[in-house]
């Protein structure tokens, strides 16, 4: 059977639907709220923490995959893994993203990545790897919640799941071991790049949020939070 790498992502698509129904973080409803500034800072800090955690996790996982995946010069062409959310973006487009879009892209990316990571966990051979992956997934879930909190504080709606995703999980035919490992490699690479990008995204948001604290409070009141 001739399968393209990346079909394993489709297999796990249903799992992602579960994530879209994450309990929304309760909206900030305390008076004297300092605004989204502290939660943006917290989100930024979480991306740094996750990036640090990922470094050791990726090292272990790539060693588990074995050569050539754990070689520093490994530079394969990006084939397959098409449904992976890509961090790469045109410089000018990135600069001019409005806050809502910036946050939405981050939220959607991590939702997908978390879903795929959970799939990875399912297949991991050693208990140690499963433990590390589970720990990372929990932290990543925390990041998602943090982003959701920022979006709620700013009055942006959480993105809805895309239509057309199969609700029932059908285990697809297994494809080659090597292609599966390629998919894993790209997942980890994309995750690392997203964490770097998010740090820059939240830096930008932090700088923009600083002056008009009063305006944000008014915004919260208007939405009845």
């Amino acid at each position, binding site marked *: 059977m001739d399968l393209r790498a990346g079909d394993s992502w489709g297999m796990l698509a249903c799992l992602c639907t579960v994530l879209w129904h994450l309990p929304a973080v309760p909206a900030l409803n305390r008076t004297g709220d300092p605004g989204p500034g502290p939660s943006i800072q917290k989100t930024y800090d979480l991306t740094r923490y996750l990036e640090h955690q990922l470094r050791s996790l990726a090292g272990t996982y790539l060693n588990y995959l074995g050569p050539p995946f754990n070689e520093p010069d490994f*530079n394969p062409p990006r084939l397959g893994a098409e449904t992976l959310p890509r*961090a790469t973006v045109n410089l000018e487009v990135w*600069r001019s993203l409005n806050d809502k879009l910036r946050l939405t892209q981050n939220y959607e990316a991590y939702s997908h990545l978390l879903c795929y990571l959970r799939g990875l966990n399912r297949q991991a051979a050693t208990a140690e790897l499963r433990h590390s992956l589970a720990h990372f997934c929990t932290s990543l879930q925390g990041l998602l919640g943090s982003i959701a909190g920022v979006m709620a504080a700013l009055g942006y709606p959480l993105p809805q799941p895309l239509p057309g995703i199969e609700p029932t999980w059908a285990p697809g035919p297994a494809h080659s071991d090597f292609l599966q490992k390629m998919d894993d490699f790209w997942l980890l690479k994309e995750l690392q790049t997203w964490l*770097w990008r998010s*740090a820059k995204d939240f*830096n930008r948001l932090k700088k923009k949020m600083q002056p008009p604290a009063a305006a944000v409070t008014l915004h919260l009141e208007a939405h009845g939070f």
Partner: protein
Amino acid sequence: MAAPVPWACCAVLAAAAAVVYTQRHSPQEAPHVQYERLGSDVTLPCGTANWDAAVTWRVNGTDLASDLLNGSQLVLHGLELGHSGLYACFHRDSWHLRHQVLLHVGLPPREPVLSCRSNTYPKGFYCSWHLPTPTYIPNTFNVTVLHGSKIMVCEKDPALKNRCHIRYMHLFSTIKYKVSISVSNALGHNATAITFDEFTIVKPDPPENVVARPVPSNPRRLEVTWQTPSTWPDPESFPLKFFLRYRPLILDQWQHVELSDGTAHTITDAYAGKEYIIQVAAKDNEIGTWSDWSVAAHATPWTEEPRHLTTEAQAPETTTSTTSSLAPLPTTKICDTGELGSGGGPSIPFLISVPVTLALAAAATTTSSLLI
């Protein structure tokens, strides 16, 4: 035999002389350019002359000994750089120039050294290269930059000839960049390539305008300020963090402070009265490596002004206080005058002892000179 007609004879002679003259002084065809490898042997034929033709060789106008000749060919063994020059062979009797060779002695290129760096993230990066050993002859370099399968343009630096610049089109890419360089000259060819991720080559320039100032009425403080490097295009979205190191000149051990933001810091544990050397480095908050250390700033913490002298009785004490304010270095020893003449001792004791002598002499005469 009939006698030659005088005018015909002169005409022929004149024509012959003219021919010889033009052959000697007419504009030469361009010399043949030849590149040869250092240490090798080369045989230079005299153009199309027969092997047994009688010729003289000259290099840069100087005659060459005939023992270097193999027939009409010049043989040079074990070429050295000094062998480079303009070689010319002449017909021995007529001094007619037969052939010229411009010889360049050099080496084929070794593998070039290539490195790339982004000091203007996220605008772009530059790559620079050099040869580890000289070739002594002209080289041409060719750089290609690939991002995945896409070819990117590397624009030549207007000032530096071994550098070119690439602009980032996309940020946060998971695809590596591959930069290849090939170098060639008349004697050979070489090439190398490097591959890297966007994030790993980020290294800002050092912070600029590092200034250290004493803090009035605070003998243990120094205030340090600096500026983000002017080449870093967007410190707002891509903030830098800083690393400060400082030590008194007399010690080798540095103190370090890492600062996550701001371009100022106050040192609060300086040794009183000691001159300090201070440097700062910068790094993007999340990615890449630390910059080189900045140009050093020097400063000495604020010290209280010494009180004025009033009486003659205090003169000897004044001299001792003069020596102590010079802050004797740990390596200093008080030298005896016998060492001063030897010239082999360290210079520092000499500097310490002289003021003592002068101060004592001054005190011995009058005290009025000590009053300010």
